[in-house]
């Protein structure tokens, strides 16, 4: 069974360990601004929401890429950016209706969550299990997928999106 990152904002304390772990794994530095997962803070409500790519089946980023730089990892289901092909045109960053693929000015390329090849460090680092990596059919995920369906022009025909 394919596994997914499942996010439960109610358990998040805003400690940013996930951002640290992500940045260290992918960029070699402890720098939250380079993290592919972001924790958003709702000051008024005292609430924290970790947010990253859901590896949606529509793969807006992949389809929009003009140079074939985003591909599907058949083992993990992650959509991965191939740095050697990415030219940094940023079309994917406006195409993804979740805003989870971002331009990295220092490399001139885009970055997104690739599930760390099947061992996502954000989930390992999370001390409260707000981020877990488990079987795909779980609640939090469904809610994010619901977003996908309202923003999706072609949701009635997922067969063409596999």
């Amino acid at each position, binding site marked *: 069974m394919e596994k997914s990152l499942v996010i439960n904002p109610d358990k998040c304390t805003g400690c940013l360990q996930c951002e640290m772990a992500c940045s260290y794994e992918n960029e070699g530095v402890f720098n939250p601004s380079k993290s592919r997962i972001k924790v958003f803070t709702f000051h008024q409500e005292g609430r924290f*929401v970790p947010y990253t790519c859901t590896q949606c089946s529509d793969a807006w980023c992949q389809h929009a890429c*003009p*140079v074939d730089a985003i591909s599907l990892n058949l083992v993990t289901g992650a959509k991965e950016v191939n740095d050697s092909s990415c*030219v940094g045109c940023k079309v994917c960053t406006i195409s993804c*209706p979740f805003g989870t693929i971002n331009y990295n000015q220092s490399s001139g390329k885009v970055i997104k969550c690739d599930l760390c090849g099947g061992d996502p460090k954000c989930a390992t680092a999370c001390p409260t299990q707000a981020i877990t990596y488990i079987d795909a059919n779980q609640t939090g995920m469904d809610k994010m997928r619901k977003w996908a369906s309202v923003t999706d022009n072609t949701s009635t*025909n997922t067969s063409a999106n596999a």
Partner: protein
Amino acid sequence: MQYIIVGAGPSGVIACETIRKLDQKAQITLITGQKEPPYSRMAIPYFLEHKITEAGTYLRHNSEHFRALNIIVINEKITAIVTPKNTIKLADGTELGYEKLLLATGAHAVSPPIEGISLNDVHNCWTLEDARNIASKAVSGSSVVLMGAGFIGCIILESLLKRGVNLTIVEMGDRMVPRMMDDTAGGLLKSWCESKGVKILTSEQVTSISEADSSDKHSLIVNLKDSQDLSADLVICATGVKSNIDFLDGSGIIVDQGIIVNEFLQTNIDNIYASGDVAQGLDFSDQSLHVQAIQPTAVEHGRIAAINMVQHNSCVHHGSINMNILDTMGLISASFGQWMGVEGGQESILLDAKNFRYLNLQFKDECLVGMSSLGHTQNIGVVRGLIRSKVKLGIWKQRMMKDPSRLMEAYLADL
């Protein structure tokens, strides 16, 4: 089923691939008027600055890609469609039969009708061939005049400067990217470019181009309406594009600016569809028909048209959102939907001119309908999500009216 797809840009290519996914037995033929393998013009600026080779512009990097999908590629121009016979004619005289036809013939660059526009050292910036010509002439120390400060003009600025040219931009409009940004953002973009050593003449026009005397070290003289003549080694004309529809004369297919398509990307002829830069399809924002000529729309069209060709109009196109993202020498601008605002709407603006940061949100009732920005890149795709899903923002609209930078919070509030 016999499918012919005409045009090997992003729209045609994704259509072929989608048809193959849905119908293993389909006979798919891809017709391209270009000599090269399918390539992306979005990658041309990066080719010009030597970041990639020509092969880096290819839409698919595996040279066996189309063969592996059993898609026949024919490099020949289409000259006509004979709709009663369900055939197309190619420039070499071949006539091919189709059961379903997709027209994804794209657009071509247009030049103003001025004297000297066909001179040797005047080039458009649209095809790979144009890019090769620009690359051979935009060499270090040369003087380049760029006509047009729209999307295409702006996106090649950095590569031209990296090539070491002296650059002057001549734009007819009163600001840069007039069809993508308002005057505040366009003005900031102009001062950004000027701070990088680019000379920009707005509200100015090239009236003619002539060959310089052989004694002159530059090859061209560029005459302007109000300002002094410019000397140049190369003139790049990036003044706009038009849909490729001329071959449709006499076909019975209804055209306006582009080919008119319905909510299935279907033309007025049942078994003929159109997609991408050649299609005048539904715009999500105003629900009228526009040629958007942008990459995300080309791809969206291509997929939806392909599904409808195979699965009998089962997939409705609700309209594409016009959107652009542009990197002008490191200053990133973006615009979405009705960035210019709508009647009876409200706007919320954050401006930090000193740091070239700008964020402009446009609302209609409780929904976000448009956005334009400078210097904002993180999570920018949520703007598409919010516009497309027509989320009723409620209290979050009030919060964003006070502080537009709370966009991401508004997006996540329900999660």
